């Protein structure tokens, strides 16, 4: 079982988390087309490479965060706050 480095709790067994999947940005609902929306809902790039994923620490801090994981080796090179929170931090100038 791999360990996932939670930005809040540190490394924990992957069983404590829900692997939400590849991180994607939600299309603008007012302009999206069926093709774009269903791409957002259903398609996965499924790369044998570094991918950015969202994980949820269900049995720990209950925080969503982003993880850069190599899908072949399971190496994880970074875990960080979700993009929206990082944007908010930089917007507020902190």
């Amino acid at each position, binding site marked *: 079982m791999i360990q996932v480095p939670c930005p*809040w*709790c540190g490394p*924990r*067994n992957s*069983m*404590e988390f829900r692997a939400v999947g590849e991180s994607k940005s939600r299309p603008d609902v007012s302009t999206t087309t069926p093709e774009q929306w269903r791409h957002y809902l259903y398609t996965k790039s499924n790369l044998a490479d570094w991918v950015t994923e969202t994980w949820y620490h*269900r*049995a*720990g*801090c*209950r*925080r969503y965060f982003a993880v850069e994981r190599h899908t072949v080796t399971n190496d994880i090179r970074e875990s960080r706050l979700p993009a929206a929170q990082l944007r908010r931090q930089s917007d507020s100038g*902190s």
Partner: protein
Amino acid sequence: MSGPPIAPIPVARSPIVATPPVEVVAGWEVSTHRSTAALRVSDLTWLCKVAVKADANGAFTARHPTTFGSARRLPGDLIEIGSDPGGWLTIGPVGDAAALVERLTDEVADAGEMVSVIDLTHGRALLRLTGPDSVGALAKLCAIDLADAVTPNLAAFRSSVGSLVTDVVRDDLVDGTLSYLLHCERSSGQHLFSCLVDAGAEYGIDIAGPPI
């Protein structure tokens, strides 16, 4: 039958079946069984539990420097736990919830910050596992490293204990005896209790009523 019904006197109950002898103390049905076993588990569900949510960088945080993943003992028999990022849980004496909610709410009332104070006394089951072998028993249920270097006294974490999401606080007794507080959502309390009793059987675990 008619006429005004006779209202029974309210009794509060833990979700964990109390080990006889059972008495009503401070309005709660509790076990008064005493134990001198080296490894003991006690149901402390009756203690008050108050959760606070606040901005991690705000006024409440400035006054309550208990960081996420740690706990502090405070005057008045309180334990303040950094239970979530931007979240605290304070455990205090039985019956003190309303006063505690009021005090914590008042503290930052004019700070202009959104702070939520919620009484979770009824929402959580609370247990204490005490004794040198509590590490051995917990290691049968929980994948967290319980070594001093990783989880020293007053370390707090949430993880899976017996496949149940459980908050654990290492809170050694005054004499240094190893001890853990464990709490989970109320309806699973009996499950957590049974898991601990089962895991502790190898070490001769006994059940003790809460200190009165």
